[in-house]
């Protein structure tokens, strides 16, 4: 099972969108319910989890670029 650079870029793009589209969830809950509310804290944990995933994906992307699988088809 493998993944090529193009697929990885696409996955990274989608994960980045996931990160940005959920970014205001913790903020809204914090503003409405307070920092210590469990929903607000759960939202922070959700955001941390997405961020961890995205960071790992970006690291994987870098290592994939170090060993490119695409072949250069000259001019």
């Amino acid at each position, binding site marked *: 099972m*493998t993944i090529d650079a193009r*697929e990885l870029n696409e996955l990274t793009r989608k994960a980045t969108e996931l990160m940005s589209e959920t970014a205001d969830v913790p903020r809204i809950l914090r503003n409405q*319910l307070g920092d210590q509310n469990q*929903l607000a804290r759960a939202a922070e944990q*959700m955001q941390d989890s997405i961020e961890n995933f995205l960071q790992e994906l970006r690291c994987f992307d870098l290592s994939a670029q170090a060993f490119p699988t695409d072949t250069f088809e000259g001019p």
Partner: protein
Amino acid sequence: MGVLDPRPLDVLGLKRLEFNLRIPEADFEHLIRTLSEARSRATELAASISARLGPDHRLAELANAAASRVENMLREIQIFATTGTVTTAGLADLHGALQSESQPVTPAPVIPSEHVPTEMQATASFAMQAGLEPEHWLPMFVHDLISQVRASGGITFEVAERLLQQRKDDFLRDFLIARRMYRTYPKLFPEIQGEIGPPEGHPIQQ
């Protein structure tokens, strides 16, 4: 805002806390819509990575963990929206553990045209027998189940739970929109004016 009255309950061994908290309806709608879309995206990402790298790969585990967090968050917001209750303790973790091991719902492929009338008739027939409108969530859920079984040749408890959860999401989204419409434009609903009061504090009729 205001955390005002935390009252501990002990329901089936799960600790629950109730709060007199208020979140504007527009924010609820935004949160539920955002998290519903995020859940779809996260589930799709997790399925893609698991398919390419294997379910035991660290990336797949992180993707599944993120998808579970999003799903739990959506569920908590929905519970909070309908009951004003925040569930705590092991419930979310239990759901997370179950979800992370569960199979993602595979989108049902396009159903061959010859099956459509049969399924629609079956759904309509079920609704009629149950004395429900065809648009009621229960016949539609049964339709989802039948479609899933036909598409994949089987069904698991996890898939059935997810399909039900999707129906619940749709119901809640429709309910919030309808309630907002009624509050904002009550004159558009002369036939029910006076029959229903403000929904605050009232359970949702499903």
